[in-house]
């Protein structure tokens, strides 16, 4: 313990003697950790956000394909499917996109059957009522009690705004116009008795595979989507994007490690001499190495922690300017982001493994090589 403290003290002296180099390495490490950490924090937060909403998803979604494109499906099919075993409930859903010229963006029109209250207003209960998402309300200046006119097939259809979703739920609702199913059909220009897809709740998810086949046989052109599959697709989307982002950052990591390698392996004549002096005054190889390890450990601790905090501040306080676009793509109706930090320890460990461990390794190896030199060789200034 006393020995280690004395060595740490010596290591601190060494860091101070080479202040410029120490600072450059610490800041470089912090920068690289911050880049990777920000990508990690963002993906983890989005993944967690997604997971918070999967409970509401139907077990199976049945679409109908005509000529290879999703087409409207007859509501009557729902009754047919409801008779199948293991099916608890079939709900024809009405939803679709509407290109809002005023916003120059697509909004999503959704038909909702459940009556629910919102923090500000409620979901529509009668035809002619709508609830809108935060981005739409924001851009059009809508409040509960206002009227919104939506041009459909040459005429403007007016609806009363009875609810506005808050920012808390913006990541799910920012672009929504929620209406009763009949009203949603009118807004989307869908014929009566048609639905966009059918949402099926099962008594047990295990039957999904069997049912998919039966539905395929029953409904011509059916495409059945398993909720678990959707979930996995989404996870993969974020994994892929996070991975691509990390891939883009790899050159930064490589550059840093190269720089560190150069700085650390090119033991200057001064440092070589220093190690020679230490060995000459009775330091063993292990002592020289331990002092070097402490130097690297201090730089790594400060750099990595600083980087992690920087990443956190960048993502959650500054809303990740630059990086968010890469991860989320661009959207005319980008919701106000209020991400909830989620952290996956495995990923954190992976980050440490990818950045910190190579750093410590490349800083110790050259010192080890130098410390192995006989002091008399250091003395001769040779190899």
């Amino acid at each position, binding site marked *: 313990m006393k020995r280690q*403290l004395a060595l740490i003290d010596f290591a601190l002296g060494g860091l101070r003697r080479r202040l410029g180099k120490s600072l450059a390495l610490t800041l470089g490490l912090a920068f690289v950790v911050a880049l990777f950490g920000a990508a990690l924090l963002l993906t983890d937060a989005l993944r967690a956000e997604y997971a918070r909403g999967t409970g509401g998803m139907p077990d199976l979604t049945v679409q109908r394909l005509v000529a290879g494109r999703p087409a409207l499906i007859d509501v009557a099919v729902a009754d047919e499917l409801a008779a199948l075993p293991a099916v608890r409930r079939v709900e024809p859903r009405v939803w679709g996109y509407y290109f809002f010229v005023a916003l120059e963006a697509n909004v999503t029109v959704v038909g909702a059957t459940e009556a629910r209250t919102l923090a500000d207003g409620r979901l529509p209960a009668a035809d002619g009522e709508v609830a809108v998402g935060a981005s739409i309300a924001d851009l059009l200046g809508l409040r509960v009690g206002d009227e919104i006119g939506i041009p459909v097939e040459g005429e403007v259809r007016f609806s009363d705004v009875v609810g506005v979703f808050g920012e*808390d739920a913006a*990541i799910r609702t920012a672009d929504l116009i929620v209406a009763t199913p009949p009203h949603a059909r009118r807004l989307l220009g869908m014929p009566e008795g048609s639905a966009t*897809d059918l949402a099926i709740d099962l008594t047990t998810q295990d039957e999904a595979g069997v049912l998919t086949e039966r539905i395929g046989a029953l409904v011509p052109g059916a495409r059945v989507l398993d909720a678990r599959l*959707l979930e*996995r697709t989404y996870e993969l989307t974020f994994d892929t994007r996070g991975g691509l982002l990390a891939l883009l950052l790899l050159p930064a990591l490589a550059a840093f490690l190269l720089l560190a390698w150069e700085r650390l392996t090119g033991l200057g004549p001064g440092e070589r001499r220093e190690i020679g002096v230490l060995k000459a005054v009775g330091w063993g190889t292990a002592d020289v190495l331990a002092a070097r390890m402490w130097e690297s450990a201090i730089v790594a601790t400060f750099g990595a922690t600083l980087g992690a905090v920087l990443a956190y501040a960048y993502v959650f306080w500054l809303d990740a300017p630059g990086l968010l676009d890469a991860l989320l793509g661009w959207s005319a109706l980008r*919701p106000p982001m209020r991400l909830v930090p989620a952290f996956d320890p495995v990923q954190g460990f992976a980050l440490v493994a990818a950045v910190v461990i190579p750093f410590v390794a490349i800083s110790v190896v050259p010192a080890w090589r130098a410390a192995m030199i006989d002091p008399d060789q250091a003395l001769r200034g040779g190899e």
Partner: protein
Amino acid sequence: MTPRLRALAGGLVLLAALVAVALVDAGRRRPRSGPDHEAAVSLGLPDLVLSSAERWLRHPSQAEPGAAVSDLPGAPDVDPAGALIGPPRAVLRVGGVEPRRR
């Protein structure tokens, strides 16, 4: 304790304080599950309000598979050759069901 060790201890305390600030902040950002969130979940929507690659808005998971002009005619195809990492094949399959492992 030498002045240098004291300085190191001070630095470590400062680091710990920074981490603590971040952790406290993270704790305060717990998801608020108000009525809006529940109403949103009850709609059963499969996607977040995020654009994904070449589609403007959400529901990418249920939009037309592989339509080059699904956004608008003339939209640049961002990835004409295919992604670096392909999507799971099952997603594109009619009646896509996650293959069960036995």
